[in-house]
């Protein structure tokens, strides 16, 4: 991945369960490792379970600022947005990675920050897709979700991330088999596939460009 091309703001949107949070966490760590000041903003107002705040300790230890919902990981299921996100989109003093909630409902939350992001015009708005998710099995189905998000969200998509995986059963072949579908989605949406994310353990099997190795959270059960 070419870090020089990284935009100041990177947004991860997509179908719920497509892997946005994991990607956002890994991407923020990646930017940080390149020496950039970076903040990760979790503005997922849809899913109160499994969120980037779960990785907060690891992120902070690496020097990534974490902006999360005031009630994240508590029992308060309240879709409120943290005010610090305004600072992030207005001040332009560091790299910003934004983890947006799933589907069009999740993308609504982006609306209030959209004008700042569009005005600055230094953003990458990525559609995350996992073709092994039951409602985005094909390029056509994924494109439908993409359009639904596009319809409510004033930040236009600039690219696609192919995050196709089958959890712990993922192997090289499983990822490769989705390349064609990703290209098809790219043609339908007229947006480039920015990268394919694969688990670190598989990264060696992919010598080609455009592969982003990701680390998963530890499993307890």
């Amino acid at each position, binding site marked *: 991945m070419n870090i020089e091309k990284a935009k100041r703001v990177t947004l991860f949107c997509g179908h719920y369960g497509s892997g946005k949070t994991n990607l956002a966490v890994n991407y923020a760590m990646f930017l940080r490792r390149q020496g950039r000041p970076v903040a990760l903003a979790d503005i997922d107002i849809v899913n109160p379970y499994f969120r980037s705040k779960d990785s907060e300790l690891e992120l902070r230890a690496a020097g990534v600022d974490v902006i999360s919902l005031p009630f994240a990981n508590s029992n308060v299921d309240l879709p409120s947005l943290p005010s610090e996100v305004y600072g992030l989109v207005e001040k332009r003093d560091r790299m910003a990675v934004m983890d947006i909630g799933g589907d069009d409902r999740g993308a609504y939350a982006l609306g209030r920050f959209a004008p700042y992001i569009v005005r600055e015009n230094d953003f990458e708005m990525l559609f995350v897709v996992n073709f092994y998710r039951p409602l985005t099995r094909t390029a056509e189905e994924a494109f439908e979700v993409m359009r639904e998000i596009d319809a409510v969200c004033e930040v236009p998509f600039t690219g696609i991330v192919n995050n196709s995986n089958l959890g712990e059963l993922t192997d090289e072949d499983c990822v490769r*088999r989705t390349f064609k579908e990703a290209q098809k989605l790219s043609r339908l949406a007229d947006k480039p596939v920015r990268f394919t994310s694969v688990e670190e353990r598989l990264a060696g099997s992919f010598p080609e460009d455009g592969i982003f190795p990701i680390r998963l959270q530890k499993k*307890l059960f």
Partner: protein
Amino acid sequence: MSEKVLMKGNEAIAEAAIRAGCRHYFGYPITPQTELAAYMAKRMPKIDGVFLQAESEIAAINMVYGVSSAGLRVMTSSSSPGVSLKQEGISYIAGSDLPALIVNVERGGPGLGGIQPSQSDYYQATKGGGHGDYHLIVLTPASVQEMADLTALAFDLSDKYRVPAMLLADGTIGQMMEPVELPEESCSKVEKPWAVTGTKMQRKHNIVNSLYLVPEELERTNMERFERYAEIEKNEVRYEEFMTEDADVCVVAFGIAARVSKNAVVAARKEGIKAGLIRPITVWPFPKQPVADIAPRVKGFVSVELSMGQMIDDIRLACGCSKPVSLCNRVGGMIPTPDEVLDAIRKMNGGLA
């Protein structure tokens, strides 16, 4: 693409229900089961099914009552507080001898409690949460794959015995994502001559009802229903045994607690403690026999639960209080760690009075 897909537990239930021929879903959103309703909302209109977000949980369960009366496969889903609201309807459905699937993706309680996982509705699910003498067939999935498989089984058993079935899951299994092989499209056709489908002037009226004006008749229907329950207890107990053959300590756990316990059993074996696990898959009927069978051979049992200790009573009853049963638990949305379970195994192995 491969047959396997990556699903959330909640989605797996929804898709498996559709594949089992369920075309009627009634519910009301509540964390942590909302994806189930959301999935149904997306899928049902595309397959001529009905997704209806009712005005309340009480309305939803009564819609289930209605559709089941007409002989169709039907379900509702909720999480703990919402399932409490459904209890009156569940009792009516049981009292009318109707099949139905009720899904409870449990969260911490009592009251509104919290949104994090729990197993503290065990009593409610297995001992009759509503009024009257009745049982539900209660299945407890421990993986996303089982969310799908047990959904299909629940519909089949429910139809077969005309007893409502409950899938008793928890927030973690509802939310976690795992690869799943979805069951084939199938709807095992059970004849439902009792269904209210219109007489076409060719037969007597079918009546679906839970009100009996003559006490002798109500007594008789209760007795007959319990004969069916006895059949279920005889034929439909399901459980998994893991390393129990030579076990000195027997852990009993279901659902997410069983996954943690399995890791703890493996860890215990590594340090030379002969631990084993009985994982009930049905908690009503409870696997009494395997617990009774292993009791003479073990030092004791460890009940691992996300509750203050509810299933522990069934273990004590099943072993006739012949062996000590200790409790290893976390509540309020917390999950025991494998180390905590391992510690409980060590204590029981060391001889707990």
